[in-house]
């Protein structure tokens, strides 16, 4: 039986629908035994790592009200395709779908989706995490936060580099 190994990569301003993404991964392929999905949301943490909703005295911290995401059109898609190809070389995958939003977002908004289908759950779990770890450290997206105190560009985290380095 032929298995269509499809990769979908979308960078878009519009929100995405988890059910539609999941259905697309599941469609027309009885060889799939596992689907793993990851959804990244915008939180109200500021760059200092404090959450306004966690804090009893919210005034101590400036909470993030808006996030603006920009990217490098063309290179983003190229980098994401390369990451998916690396994942396909390591694990047996069927479908891979990546959706990353750009533009303005508010807390709890969906930012990123990664979905992977495979014959086996081990491959689906590992590949989904691998793709996310490298998306965070290699795909040319940049976040700018608007807080009650003003605007600032988000700094890259060394912990994200550490997560990606685990796979090397």
């Amino acid at each position, binding site marked *: 039986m032929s298995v269509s190994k499809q990769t979908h990569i979308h960078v878009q301003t519009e929100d995405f629908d988890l059910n539609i993404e999941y259905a697309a991964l599941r469609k027309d392929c009885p060889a799939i035994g596992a689907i793993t999905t990851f959804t990244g949301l915008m939180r109200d943490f500021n760059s200092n790592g404090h959450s306004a909703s966690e804090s009893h005295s919210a005034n101590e911290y400036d909470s993030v009200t808006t996030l603006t995401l920009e990217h490098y059109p063309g290179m983003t898609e190229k980098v994401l395709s390369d990451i998916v190809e690396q994942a396909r070389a390591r694990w047996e995958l069927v479908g891979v779908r990546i959706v990353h939003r750009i533009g303005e977002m508010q807390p709890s908004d969906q930012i990123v989706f990664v979905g992977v289908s495979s014959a086996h759950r081990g491959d689906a779990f590992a590949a989904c995490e691998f793709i996310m770890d490298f998306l*965070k450290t290699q795909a040319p997206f940049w976040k700018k936060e608007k807080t009650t105190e003003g605007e600032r560009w988000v700094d890259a985290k060394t912990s994200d580099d550490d997560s990606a380095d685990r796979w090397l």
Partner: protein
Amino acid sequence: MLNILYFARLREDLNTDQEQFDLPEDVTTTDQLRDLLMNRGERWQNALSTEGLLVAINQDVCDWNTPLTGNEEVAFFPPVTGG
């Protein structure tokens, strides 16, 4: 003709997202191109000294000693923060 792109904090600090010019003959690497741009003044010096600054040629991140022919798309940007 060299096509240079600037993203995120760099784009804002330099107040420009793109420029084109003919590469001077004595500029043959990414590092030398950065030096050329930094010579424009303090604003350029500061922006291009950003910690972890990355450079990409034709949409591939590369080293600072990568050769340039003068017909590339070169992009400068800070460390990425997507996801």
